[in-house]
């Protein structure tokens, strides 16, 4: 078969094998550590090999005719029960190949960066084992040819996210942040599993891989389709940190910075967007579901942007900006602009990874200081980091001709073109806010005077293993946007065309004037945002105090506290009540009753137990006597 490819399974297998090898080495050598770079180099082999294979997949696909452009490998029957037949199968089509490319590329870069960043850490090997495991799981997620296989990767990345967030396990807060991430993700996973179940009972009987599902999607009743869409979207909100399940992502910054860059910015959190795009054949049938997705996305973008404007932890700022950008992506896929959404995933991976790695370099230089109000003036000390980060910030803020501009603008334009005025308006506002908080961070950290002179004196530029990935990513952040240059700039939207066979979307025809107008609105928003930031923070500013609305926003609208008092505390309290009140008093009641009954009867009969053999004989005789009397009468 021309579409079968036996090498697909090796793409996730390489990092997974790396994880097993490093993990075993760690277990056997953690008491007697060997040369630490050794682990790092082994860890980098897997991702790089996967990247090479991903390139091979890409060029193979490119050589194929557009209609049959997919590669498939069914490794073995995973399980088969009744009608449910799930193969451990891998599918590479334009969508997954695009994801593959940037996941393996950025994954490899971050592995290299981590060799430097994690230097001297105690659990060096463990970190790389987890990182490899994560990459393997992410590749399973991307390549899985059925929702169930995808779910394996889906949960696998959740696990690795948990392990890496709580990587510094001696601190309770880190572990709690990890737990929070895992549990909140699990809430989303519940939606995913239920969505899969409903989907299976509706149309899964003739095969439960994407090919078969896509072929049978038109049999789906509208109500079921809506249910499936919403349940799957619950899964996506968990993984991709959307309202109402976004709360775990800011806390997830407790993990090492490369983790934040790889998992919580570039790859894992975009899995939800990828999943919605994967299921575009269902979402396309249910516009209502799409609108819900889009609105949730854009509201998340707004909310996270508001929070982002008041954070003082450099990583938290970036975390909220990630949530916010993820919101854009969902707005994109929600308005059926799947290629635009995925394209934003693609560009975002570059500039957000870049920003995180840059922030990591800063944190590394400042000896694990993360509060931006303790930094300042680092521009002179860390020029490479500064310039690369500025490129990243410009891309994030949507500066024209940087990658973020093209992708974000595409989303907003598609929202407008498909008639979602509200989403477009909010989107433009958020774009301005994005520019504001991004440059607030840049100005406070790199400009002005140093606020902590001691730390400033010891700050220095990061080593080459760390700056090299920064530079590569900066190049990506600069030019990734040109892959999907819209027609208005003379491009031919290559990514959109590449994805066209997979995702179900249609391009409404809108006049050039509207397109230009929309673009101008975005640019204006960007300029206003960056100007405000310059005014306030450009020349150095002191840590502000908050009151009123700003205080409310600074405390993130008290959402964490709300969740804690509405879900967590009652849960624990019910548990305590069961333990202290219900178990001993209610469910144990019958058995206590029985034993008390026995005790009472026993006490009553104790009277007869006088202890003299003769008396027992008398009892017997009395019994016999009574029986005899009765029998004598009955004999007559």
């Amino acid at each position: 078969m021309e579409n079968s490819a036996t090498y697909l399974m090796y793409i996730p297998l390489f990092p997974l094998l790396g994880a097993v090898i490093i993990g075993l080495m760690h277990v056997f050598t953690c008491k007697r550590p060997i040369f630490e770079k050794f682990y790092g180099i082994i860890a980098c082999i897997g991702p790089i090999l996967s990247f090479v294979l991903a390139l091979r997949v890409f060029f193979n696909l490119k050589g194929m005719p557009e209609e049959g452009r997919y590669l498939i490998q069914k490794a073995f029957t995973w399980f088969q029960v009744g009608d449910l037949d799930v193969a451990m199968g891998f599918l590479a089509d334009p969508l997954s190949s695009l994801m593959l490319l940037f996941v393996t590329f950025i994954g490899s870069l971050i592995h290299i960066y981590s060799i430097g960043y994690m230097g001297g850490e105690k659990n060096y090997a463990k970190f790389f084992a987890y990182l490899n495991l994560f990459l393997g799981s992410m590749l399973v997620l991307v390549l899985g040819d059925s929702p169930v296989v995808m779910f394996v990767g889906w949960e696998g990345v959740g696990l690795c996210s948990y392990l890496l967030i709580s990587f510094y396990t001696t601190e309770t807060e880190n572990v709690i942040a990890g737990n929070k991430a895992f549990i909140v993700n699990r809430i989303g996973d519940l939606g995913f599993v239920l969505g899969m179940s409903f989907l299976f009972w509706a149309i899964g009987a003739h095969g439960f891989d994407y090919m078969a599902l896509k072929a049978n999607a038109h049999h789906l009743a509208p109500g079921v389709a809506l249910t499936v869409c919403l349940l799957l979207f619950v899964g996506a909100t968990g993984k991709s940190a959307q309202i109402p399940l976004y709360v775990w992502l800011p806390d997830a910054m407790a993990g090492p910075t490369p983790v934040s860059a790889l998992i919580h910015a570039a790859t894992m959190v975009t899995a939800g967007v990828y999943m919605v795009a994967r299921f575009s054949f269902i979402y396309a049938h249910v516009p209502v579901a799409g609108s819900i997705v889009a609105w949730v996305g854009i509201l998340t973008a707004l909310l996270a942007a508001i929070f982002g404007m008041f954070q003082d932890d450099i990583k938290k700022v970036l975390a909220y900006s990630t949530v916010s950008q993820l919101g854009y992506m969902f707005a994109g896929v929600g308005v059926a602009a799947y290629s635009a959404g995925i394209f934003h995933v693609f560009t975002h991976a570059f500039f957000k990874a870049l920003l995180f790695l840059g922030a990591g370099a800063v944190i590394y230089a400042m000896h694990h200081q993360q509060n931006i109000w303790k930094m300042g003036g680092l521009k002179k000390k860390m020029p490479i980091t500064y310039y690369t980060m500025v490129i990243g910030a410009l891309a994030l803020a949507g500066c024209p001709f940087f990658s973020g501009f093209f992708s974000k603008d595409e989303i907003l334009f598609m929202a407008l073109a498909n008639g979602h005025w509200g989403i477009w308006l909010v989107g433009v506002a958020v774009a301005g806010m994005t520019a504001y908080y991004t440059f607030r961070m840049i100005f406070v950290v790199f400009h002005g005077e140093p606020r902590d002179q001691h730390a400033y004196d010891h700050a220095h530029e990061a080593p080459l293993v760390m700056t090299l990935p920064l530079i590569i990513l900066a190049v990506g952040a600069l030019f990734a946007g040109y892959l999907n240059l819209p027609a208005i700039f003379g491009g031919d939207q290559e990514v959109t065309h590449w994805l066209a066979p997979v995702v179900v979307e249609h391009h409404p025809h809108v006049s050039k004037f509207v397109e230009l107008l929309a673009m101008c609105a975005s640019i204006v928003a960007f300029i206003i945002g960056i100007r405000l930031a310059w005014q306030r923070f450009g020349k150095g500013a002191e840590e502000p105090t908050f009151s009123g609305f700003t205080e409310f926003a600074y405390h993130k609208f008290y959402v964490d506290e709300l969740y804690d008092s509405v879900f967590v505390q009652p849960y624990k309290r019910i548990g305590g009540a069961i333990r202290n009140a219900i178990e001993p008093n209610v469910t144990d009641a019958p058995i206590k009753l029985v034993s008390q009954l026995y005790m009472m009867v026993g006490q009553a009969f104790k009277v007869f137990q006088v202890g003299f053999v003769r008396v027992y004989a008398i009892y017997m005789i009395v019994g016999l006597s009574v029986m005899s009397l009765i029998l004598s009468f009955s004999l007559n």
Partner: protein
Amino acid sequence: MIHSYLMVSVILFCIGMLGVISRRNVFTVFMSIELMLNAANLAFVAFSRLHESMDGHVLALMVMAVAAAEAALALAVVILLHKHKGKLDTNVFSLLKG
């Protein structure tokens, strides 16, 4: 005819029971039990005569063997108890109290 023998058996059996429940002397109680066994033996033999089969005789023999065994054991127990308590009163031995 046989009925009279059975009547005698019943009477002896009841007297034996009376001895067991109304006396406190260990020896008397013990011999009352022997009396009950003998009453049963008489019934066996009588029935044997009635049915003209000798199985009853065999059973009577067995009962005698059991009675002998019982006598041996019971007397051993009586000696032991007498050694322990110096009394022959059944009321002294009230270890069965719950």
